[in-house]
């Protein structure tokens, strides 16, 4: 566990420092007389909202699963974001959102192939990211990297199950809230990275910014707890595409 944590810290630092040096070099090469990358650098703080779609897959071992196929499901991501610019090229950004991170399990064994389950998971996500900006005065590109903590607050599942007698198999649809149990790790975390573009609106106010971000959330903590003699970790991977609006002040 210690080794894993050290690896994680080292990787974050590596990413942060390397990209920081690169961005600083770019900034210095522009020179003092040139146009700053940040259109209104006096606006250090910005607050905004974001809304978009999520697409989640699950990574887990196939051990113990005979005929189950897992596929991705779409969901949503809605929340607020806050950004603080330290320089014209570097800012820290934190989001708070509720995100659907869902996936589907299909049975594919013989006559059980009508059986499936959609696992609809909702998380409160709190990513904190370094935001490296580049580009023009109004249109900017962003590279993000950071980590996140999250809380799994709700799961429902729907699909089709079966019951059987001595001679027959019957299928039944179901749709239910799932109760969490002691195997569920509800506080999980991971790393997040991605890219985005933002555009400062002229027509409204110079302090209004619209953005489009693509982020990838990569769990480093299993949402299924391990037993002391049997470990079966499961990790979610989520790609989000969100649009946002932010107000600088």
């Amino acid at each position: 566990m210690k080794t894993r944590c050290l690896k994680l810290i080292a990787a974050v630092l590596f990413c942060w420092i390397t990209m920081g040096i690169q961005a600083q070099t770019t900034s210095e090469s522009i020179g003092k007389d040139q146009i700053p990358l940040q259109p209104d650098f006096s606006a250090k703080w910005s607050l905004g909202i974001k809304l978009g779609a999520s697409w989640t897959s699950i990574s887990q071992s196939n051990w113990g699963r005979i005929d189950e196929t897992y596929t991705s499901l779409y969901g949503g991501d809605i929340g607020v974001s806050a950004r603080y610019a330290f320089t014209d090229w570097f800012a820290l950004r934190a989001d708070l959102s509720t995100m659907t991170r869902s996936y589907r399990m299909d049975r594919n064994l013989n006559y059980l192939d009508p059986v499936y389950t959609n696992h609809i998971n909702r998380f409160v996500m709190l990513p904190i990211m370094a935001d490296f900006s580049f580009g023009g005065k109004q249109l900017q590109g962003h590279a993000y990297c950071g980590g996140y903590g999250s809380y799994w607050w709700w799961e429902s599942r729907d699909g089709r199950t079966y019951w059987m007698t001595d001679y027959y198999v019957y299928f039944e649809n179901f749709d239910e809230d799932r109760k969490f149990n002691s195997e569920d790790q509800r506080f999980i975390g991971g790393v997040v990275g991605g890219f985005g573009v933002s555009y400062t609106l002229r027509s409204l106010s110079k302090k209004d910014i619209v953005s489009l971000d693509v982020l990838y959330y990569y769990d480093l903590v299993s949402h299924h707890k391990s037993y002391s003699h049997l470990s079966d970790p499961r990790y979610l991977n989520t790609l989000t595409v969100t649009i946002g609006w932010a107000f600088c002040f």
Partner: protein
Amino acid sequence: MKRNIIILAAVALIFSGCRKQADYHPYIGETSDLAYNSYSTQFEYLWKCISTGYVFWDVDKTDWDNVYDEYMPKFLDLDNKHEAGQDVTLNDLDALYRGVFGGMIDHHMKVYVKNLFPSSSDTITKLTVRPGQMEVEKRDYYIEPREEEQSHLLEFLSGMEAVYDIEVHESATAPVEELNNTVTYHYFLIRLADGRKIPYLWQSMAALTPMLRDSSSPAYDLLDHWMKAITEMPREQLAGIILDNRANSGGYQDDLDYLVGTFLDEKTEIFKTRYKEGPGRYEHSAWSPYYIYPQSKYHRDITAENIPYVVICDINSVSMGEIEPTAIKAVLPTSHIIGERTFGGTGPLQPATSINLNYGGPFGDISTMSHYIYTSTFESNIGGAVHEGIGLTPDQVVLRKDHNGDFKPQLDAAIEYIQGIH
């Protein structure tokens, strides 16, 4: 930009190494990695199969990880003993496996394990652990094991005509291949003092279905006569119905169609079942309703006619032997259950060949492997609760033990109850 992507890809690779890898965990009964050649690896295999495939982890309080911690060193000691050239007896193994499985609540469970390196002093090489039997033997109303009770009950039934006014008595014995057993049936038409009649049925296993589906089966006529008596006899002649499930060791789920569906007009949920859907201990499917469908061959609305339907059960009524009275009680208002709290094996089973469907249930083969574990395939939920290990408490408790082991008081109580309903 390109450099950024390369850096991010490198970071992603580093992070992918931060994810923990899964241990090998078989689905229950998986044999692809079955290479155990020591007492400790045999134990580990069985421990893992139960960890992933046992269907009752949500209600069974056994600390399975603690079981591993406690018993793995003891099995390693057996390995050391064997490697040192000393005999490991079946008693040595039996004591350990009783400790491992003895506290589990699955009352269907039977654990058969062979001694991998039989001792020259052992005359048998296979041990058997039955956790359910170990539990019921501690109940204060326990008298005898099921096999002995069946033998005593058959003696009682053979003397019924001397005690009661019997108009009809038919008996049959038939092999039931799917149950790997021979089933005995007794049908009595008991005549009351007022001339009304009670069709009574006892069977050693729940095996109406294979007989009634085949008109050439040895017990078809007997069962057809009982079914016709309970569905076609005029109301003024029919005092009530008695189904005697004492010492019934279970059998066909589809018997519910005859014993419950006969009296229904529409599809009716009697309980819910679920199965394992993954290797996590609490990883179950959703609960699915288990329905009974109305019978077309035999039918009667005993609720509308207010016909009492009494089921006698006792401590040795297990599996379908106790699920039947539970279902009857759940959906038929004129039912009445008499006798003792039942055995507590309420989870339906499927054969070992169906583990790939259910991720649970019986696994292994004692003839070709060194283990066979008979365990429930489904968990059942009756009236919102799982009764595994507890059993059904009757509406009217009449204990054999209070009557020196006599079977008659329970039957008398059933007849008296029926006589009181008009």
